[in-house]
């Protein structure tokens, strides 16, 4: 590495080439006061406090903007330097509101620190205090306060907003004495384009931006965010058994200190008064009814753990005895730890004796697992976030990344904005990333296969495929070509609505890129053709050789914090942990020996098959851990009917979820901050989750509850703690073979990690595919199961929004998130709204063949004409009452993304 030698205050200092004088000094442990320097931001030279003298240079130079050069002689503490700094500091602080004792920032105030260092005298400052400006404090935001009277215009907030998260909500506005940080139009921050990530708050050196609710913690615990699959590492500040502060972990491999609105402000659900604190048993004679609500004590009575577990064990054993083990099903949870998931699948398999275990991965990425395994032999993301730093071209299809995986969204925006990376966005709705894209392909919902076939057609036609890669590492190319040949740009334009020119331009961009990766989300997977869509993505990568190399890859963005882990742990009906098939005799024998019992070799039922199985009478008992299918299943009314009929329902959760309201027994679980274990994020990184606080009341970690229940059903699972569970997982799961808690402390480990000294695998398929050769699949376009008609003329697509999480069990009980987005909306294009006579906020009734809901309309050009979008977070307007339960034939994932609906105006008006 190239280094530079220079002298600072007479000491020789060696730094990396490209370092600034300030960095050289800081590196050598020499303090230089500064208020605008931040290692993560570009040099700014705004505060003028870091001035130094450099031999051969005239006057004082700001060390943060001056590159260090060979042989440079720097002096940081001369009388001239200090006099200049003192005057600058006096000017900066002259109008500062000095209520330091009560200021929320007083513990880490950079201004105080620098003032103290320079020896500022109050009298000299007062002399400069010509007039005290008083600007109104902006407390419009539920999470933080903007008090510009304490702002020193270091612009760290502006730069963080621009350079790190790329939201650009604020900038310096006005002039001279009036200069201040302002939103567009100088409006309150909450009315701006601010995404509430709090990056500015975290970086403000003074009390100008401070969280509203934060307190100084007694201690901090490093753990992993429980919201999306990015897997951000963070520190929870703890005091009096409550989370009182949150900060991103600057070393976090996924987030490097950043957090999104949910990850930074979304934790007060932990101490919400509605947390379950004791087991509940349904009162005799109270019928099970969907949509139940009201007084808990009219439906349940509190019970002791002994009584609840005894009853649960008795009823489960009865069902098993009377109807056989396959009459019981378990639903695991992608929100729970790997250890919880391992234990529940073991419980269902070894104690109950069935493979009827599944979880919500069925509803999000089942098609990825099936399609990925078919193409590559592995269904996980093939690359890492660190690969994104090297990617030349991103192709994002069916993922609203900035809302659903905000930290990855910002990473991509940075790469495009500052490094010139190219971006293709294929998405029916207009999304934020579209503004950064080189090419936007607004295809019709459900036409992904046709679109990708069209791209491949052009790539092959124009000779842009990677012939060597195809020859050396793949199979099935000819068969695929035969199908793709038919997908001319003209035909694809007719199917997808994307112009021929755009298809050709995108194909050329993709075909010529040196390294490209495809990121996708539910827009690809949640279709009756989900598996086909995933195979198409795989085809495109294989065709252009964009897999198994740095900067390339297959990047399904997993939704839940631990959905990757729950799949890895075998919370799936056809595989044991590590995707080992239940109907493989050798595998079965291995698990029978390890678990000391007979196991079933019959693959179990999937979540999406449950409703019919219950109605048919095949399933009598259901054990739900941390899932809320009563809101998350498609075609809800059908599911509700089924659940009302079931004989016995146990729900284990942290709140009385909509599903828990229907349960016979409710068991209070511990939330993420109340237990130890691991989560596996979307880049296959197994990371440590650490207990920060005690669970409320009698709530217990999920794995402990299951072990206690197993005990009463005659099986001693015998785990002392979660690290012991991980040891068992490692012993039975080759891809987790080298995972041990003590190896995860720093950055975690990315599987496959087969043995104890293995460093983990940042990207897959370098040498070969898990299945040998990569397989092309000839995939034809099949239209969505439901198409629009005269009666149902609009296409409905569902999804998430930034501020909320799934069925809202957690996020709707987090004050900040709830205040930012209190209610559900139906998003609709202005032309559709005008046709229906709707104005913003009008109540609209949306109906499909399956059900209807009412919600205020939000008129926006984000939705193209003919398409409505409804987020599925609100039980008052449950989008899934409308969605289609038609399934992908292989993955059994429902088609959430395309339903035919109609919309009508309701007279009464509500604010959104």
């Amino acid at each position, binding site marked *: 590495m190239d280094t530079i030698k220079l002298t600072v205050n007479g000491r020789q200092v060696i730094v990396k080439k490209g370092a600034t004088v300030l960095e050289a000094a800081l590196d050598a442990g020499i303090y230089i006061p500064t208020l605008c320097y931040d290692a993560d931001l570009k040099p700014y030279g705004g505060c003028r406090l870091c001035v130094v003298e450099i031999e051969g240079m005239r006057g004082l130079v700001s060390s943060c903007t001056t590159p260090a050069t060979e042989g440079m002689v720097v002096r940081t503490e001369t009388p001239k330097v200090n006099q200049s700094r003192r005057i600058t500091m006096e000017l900066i602080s002259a109008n500062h509101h000095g209520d330091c004792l009560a200021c929320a920032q007083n513990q880490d105030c950079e201004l105080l620190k620098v003032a103290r260092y320079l020896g500022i005298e109050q009298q000299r400052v007062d002399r400069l205090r010509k007039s005290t400006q008083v600007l109104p404090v902006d407390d419009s935001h539920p999470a933080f306060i903007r008090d510009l009277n304490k702002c020193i215009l270091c612009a760290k907030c502006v730069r963080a907003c621009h350079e790190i998260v790329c939201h*650009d909500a604020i900038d310096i506005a006005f*002039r001279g004495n009036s200069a201040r940080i302002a939103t567009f139009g100088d409006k309150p921050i909450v009315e701006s384009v601010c995404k509430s990530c709090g990056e500015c708050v975290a970086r403000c050196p003074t009390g100008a931006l401070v969280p509203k609710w934060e307190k100084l913690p007694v201690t901090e615990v490093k753990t992993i965010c429980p919201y999306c699959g990015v897997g951000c590492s963070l520190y929870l500040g703890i005091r009096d058994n409550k989370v009182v502060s949150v900060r991103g972990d600057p070393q976090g491999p996924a987030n490097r200190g950043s957090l999104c609105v949910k990850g930074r402000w979304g934790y007060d659900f932990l101490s919400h008064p509605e947390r379950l604190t004791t087991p509940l048993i349904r009162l005799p004679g109270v019928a099970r009814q969907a949509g139940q609500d009201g007084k808990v004590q009219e439906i349940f009575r509190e019970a002791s753990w002994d009584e609840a577990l005894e009853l649960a064990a008795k009823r489960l054993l009865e069902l098993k005895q009377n109807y056989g083990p396959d009459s019981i099903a378990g639903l695991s949870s992608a929100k729970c730890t790997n250890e919880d998931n391992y234990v529940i699948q073991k419980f269902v398999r070894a104690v109950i004796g069935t493979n009827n275990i599944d979880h919500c991965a069925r509803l999000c990425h089942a098609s990825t697992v099936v399609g990925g395994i078919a193409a590559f032999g592995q269904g996980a993301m093939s690359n890492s976030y660190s690969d994104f730093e090297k990617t030349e071209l991103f192709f994002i299809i069916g993922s609203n990344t900035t809302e659903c995986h905000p930290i990855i969204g910002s990473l991509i925006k940075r790469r495009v904005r500052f490094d010139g990376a190219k971006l293709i966005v294929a998405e029916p709705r207009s999304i934020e990333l579209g*503004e950064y894209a080189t090419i936007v392909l607004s295809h019709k919902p459900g036409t992904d296969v046709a679109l990708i076939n069209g791209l491949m057609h052009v790539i092959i036609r124009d000779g842009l495929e990677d012939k060597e890669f195809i020859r050396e590492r793949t199979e099935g190319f000819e068969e695929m070509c035969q199908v793709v040949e038919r997908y001319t740009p003209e035909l694809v334009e007719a199917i997808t609505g994307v112009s021929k020119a755009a298809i050709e331009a995108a194909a050329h961009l993709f075909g010529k890129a040196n390294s490209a990766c495809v990121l996708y989300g539910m827009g690809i997977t949640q279709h009756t053709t989900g598996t086909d869509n995933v195979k198409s993505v795989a085809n495109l990568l294989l065709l252009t050789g964009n897999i198994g190399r740095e900067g390339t890859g297959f990047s399904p963005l997993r939704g839940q914090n631990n959905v990757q882990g729950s799949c890895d742990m075998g919370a799936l009906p056809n595989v044991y942990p590590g995707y080992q098939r239940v109907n493989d005799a050798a595998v079965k024998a291995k698990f029978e020996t390890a678990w000391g019992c007979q196991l079933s070799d019959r693959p179990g039922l999937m979540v999406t098959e449950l409703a019919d199985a219950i109605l048919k009478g095949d399933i009598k008992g259901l054990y739900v851990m941390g899932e809320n299918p009563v809101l998350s299943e498609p075609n809800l009314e059908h599911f509700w009917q089924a659940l009302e009929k079931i004989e016995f329902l146990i729900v284990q959760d942290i709140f009385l979820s909509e599903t828990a309201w229907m349960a016979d027994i409710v068991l209070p679980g511990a939330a993420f901050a109340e237990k130890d274990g691991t989560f596996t994020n979307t880049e296959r990184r197994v990371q440590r989750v650490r207990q920060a606080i005690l669970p409320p009341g009698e709530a217990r970690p999920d794995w402990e509850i299951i072990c206690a229940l197993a005990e009463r059903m005659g099986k001693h699972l015998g785990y002392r703690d979660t690290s012991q569970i991980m040891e068992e997982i490692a012993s039975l799961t080759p891809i987790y073979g080298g995972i041990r808690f003590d190896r995860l402390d720093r950055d975690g480990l990315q599987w496959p990690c087969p043995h104890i000294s293995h460093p983990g695998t940042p990207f897959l398929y370098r040498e070969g595919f898990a299945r040998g050769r990569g397989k092309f699949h000839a995939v034809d376009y099949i239209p969505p199961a439901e198409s629009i008609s005269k009666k149902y003329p609009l296409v409905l697509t569902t999804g998430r929004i930034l501020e909320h999480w799934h069925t809202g069990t957690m996020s709707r009980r987090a004050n900040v998130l709830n205040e930012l987005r209190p209610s559900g909306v139906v998003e609709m294009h202005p032309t559709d709204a005008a046709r229906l006579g709707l104005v913003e906020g009008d109540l609209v009734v949306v109906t499909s063949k399956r059900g209807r809901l009412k919600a205020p309309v939000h008129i926006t050009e984000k939705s193209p004409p003919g398409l409505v979008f409804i987020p599925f977070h609100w039980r008052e307007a449950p989008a899934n009452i409308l969605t289609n339960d038609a399934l992908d034939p292989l993955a059994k994932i429902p088609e959430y993304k395309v339903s035919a609906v109609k919309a009508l105006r309701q007279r009464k008006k509500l604010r959104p």
Partner: protein
Amino acid sequence: MANSSVAQGAQAPLEKEMARQQRLDEILSSYQGNEEELIPILQQVQQVFGYLPEPAMKKIAKFLKLPESTIFGVGTFYAQFKLVPSGRNIIRVCRGTACHVRGATGILGEVEKQLGIKPGESTSDLEYALEAIACFGSCALAPVMVIGNNVYGRMTPAKVKEVLANVGAER
């Protein structure tokens, strides 16, 4: 900045608004979409609209692929840009040294009294805007008042009334 009730007085009829939108599109279409074109665009937009309307600034931001907040920052930095609608006839009263000693305060006071606005504000019918200026360099004519491109020298409070009446009559 003037109060917002003044800004609301500027609600143009729909056709006029659409014509302005069209004019905005025309302005933008004569540029490439490069960052450095921001100030010329803002100047031209202000010429058409008399100020920088928020929707126009948003459109410019999209066109130049610049953050809206940056457009606002630039628009508020330069004294030449106005963020609220300004009167059609800009009345500038000099308060430079020469004008001051010859009674500029009285002139300014009279204009304020006549129009009912302070410097930096516009009348609610958007006919007049008032600005106090440091010096026009026409000190020989002090005290000086400028309306549009016409310079009125050796002003007295009585002449203010007369000049304003004439300007009013002209329109």
